[in-house]
């Protein structure tokens, strides 16, 4: 197995083992959705309207709580040194870590979305745009999150700091992702431009995040 594949495979295994964060993220996702529908109450018309944005916000929050661990776990047990030492190109390694985070957080969220959509009375026409927007947008969340997590890797209890740093960087993805699901829920075929902008945001994240993460890690290892 190549080094990058080994890193992804190891992180995914760890996430799904006892003590891993994958199920916690999905549980948190479901929790936010359920709490939201409890708060909104029986107004189904209102619920249908906000289901897409609620799913997006919940997915973003669930991603947020899992960011802290991306690099810190590796730093605490010393494996970050090994990963950095053996890396041919640190940006590629950072991209692999972000990919692993997506497989263990973003992908489970997407799989859970159809079920939670039922709870939220998500209109049938919105399932495709919501799922597509999550599929396009959550890799961006993982990439940007890996960068913010790399910035804070040397700090204890950095979850709040990571949230503050990541919030403005997540804003475009949330806007276009939720925008696509709103347009989809309204039955308009106009979610395509939102999905394109979402794709562009994720691609930009794919460009800067590995390089910036690598620079942040280097600065944090000193």
């Amino acid at each position, binding site marked *: 197995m190549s080094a990058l594949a080994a890193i992804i495979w190891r992180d995914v295994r760890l996430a799904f083992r006892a003590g891993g964060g994958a199920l916690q993220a999905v549980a948190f996702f479901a929790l936010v959705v359920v709490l939201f529908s409890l708060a909104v109450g029986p107004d189904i018309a209102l619920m249908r309207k906000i289901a897409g944005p609620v799913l997006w916000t919940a997915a973003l929050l669930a991603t947020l709580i899992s960011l802290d661990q991306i690099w810190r776990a590796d730093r605490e047990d010393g494996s970050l040194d090994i990963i950095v030492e053996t890396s041919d190109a640190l940006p590629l390694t950072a991209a692999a870590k972000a990919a692993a985070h997506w497989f263990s957080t973003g992908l489970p969220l997407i799989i859970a979305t159809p079920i939670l959509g039922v709870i939220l009375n998500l209109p049938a026409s919105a399932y495709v745009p919501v799922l597509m927007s999550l599929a396009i947008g959550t890799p961006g969340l993982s990439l940007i999150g890996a*960068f913010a997590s790399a910035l804070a890797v040397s700090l204890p209890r950095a979850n709040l*700091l990571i949230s503050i*740093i990541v919030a*403005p960087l997540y*804003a475009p993805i949330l806007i276009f992702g939720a925008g696509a699901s709103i347009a989809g829920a309204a039955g308009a075929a106009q979610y395509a431009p939102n999905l394109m902008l979402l794709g562009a945001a994720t691609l930009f994240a794919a460009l800067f995040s590995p390089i910036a993460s690598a*620079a*942040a890690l280097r600065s944090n290892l*000193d």
Partner: protein
Amino acid sequence: MASISELANPQRFEGLAQAVSPYAVGVAFITLVAGLYYALFNSPADYQQGESVRIMYVHVPAAWMAMFCYSSMAIASAVGFIWKHPLADVAAKETAPIGAGFTFLALFTGAFWGKPMWGAWWVWDARLTSVLILLFLYLGYMALWQAIPDKIRAARLAAILAIVGFVNVPIIKFSVDWWNSLHQPASILRADGPTIDGSMLTPLFLMIAAYMALFTAMLLQSMRNELVARRVARLDMAADAATSTLVETPSAASQS
């Protein structure tokens, strides 16, 4: 004429700052008083907005400064990151709170203009949203500096964040052209010349000059404070720990 690297020497900077500061404060005071006088009393009401146009003289320069400060911060960060220059790091760090202040002022005055003019304090359109994001970028940058005790590491990490966040600046600038925005497009920096009447440009430019001078004065002062604080911290550190070096110890090896 002193070169950039000479000015970048902290002692020289101290001398320069001492010389420039009083002028910056003076210019800031004079232009602010004159600008506000023109803005509030000696300029015409707009043909559509009426007296509310006066908010613009506070709002537009603040919005410009918000972007100017962020750009300066990103450039200083890049200089500090690449050439490892502590003075650039300090400049970037101390620019952030000032920029955040201008951003907040722009958002605040914008809301006060938006309520009577548009009919809403706040709308989630591209320009307003991207400026709000700018404010959060400033806050995240400041939070990162604050969270990391080692100033050299903090400078490097904050610099990376500032450079990444710079993406937002062109988005702010062009948001009104790219999206159907409620916010009006550029009035001054445009290819076919300003669309603001001359009588209104006087207070506008006076206010811009005032903000620039204010920025200079505040930046110089806070940079001097930071440099003094760092010098004290360095003296503390030098007192409590020694630098070591590596020496050969011949005996141990020969025993075996």
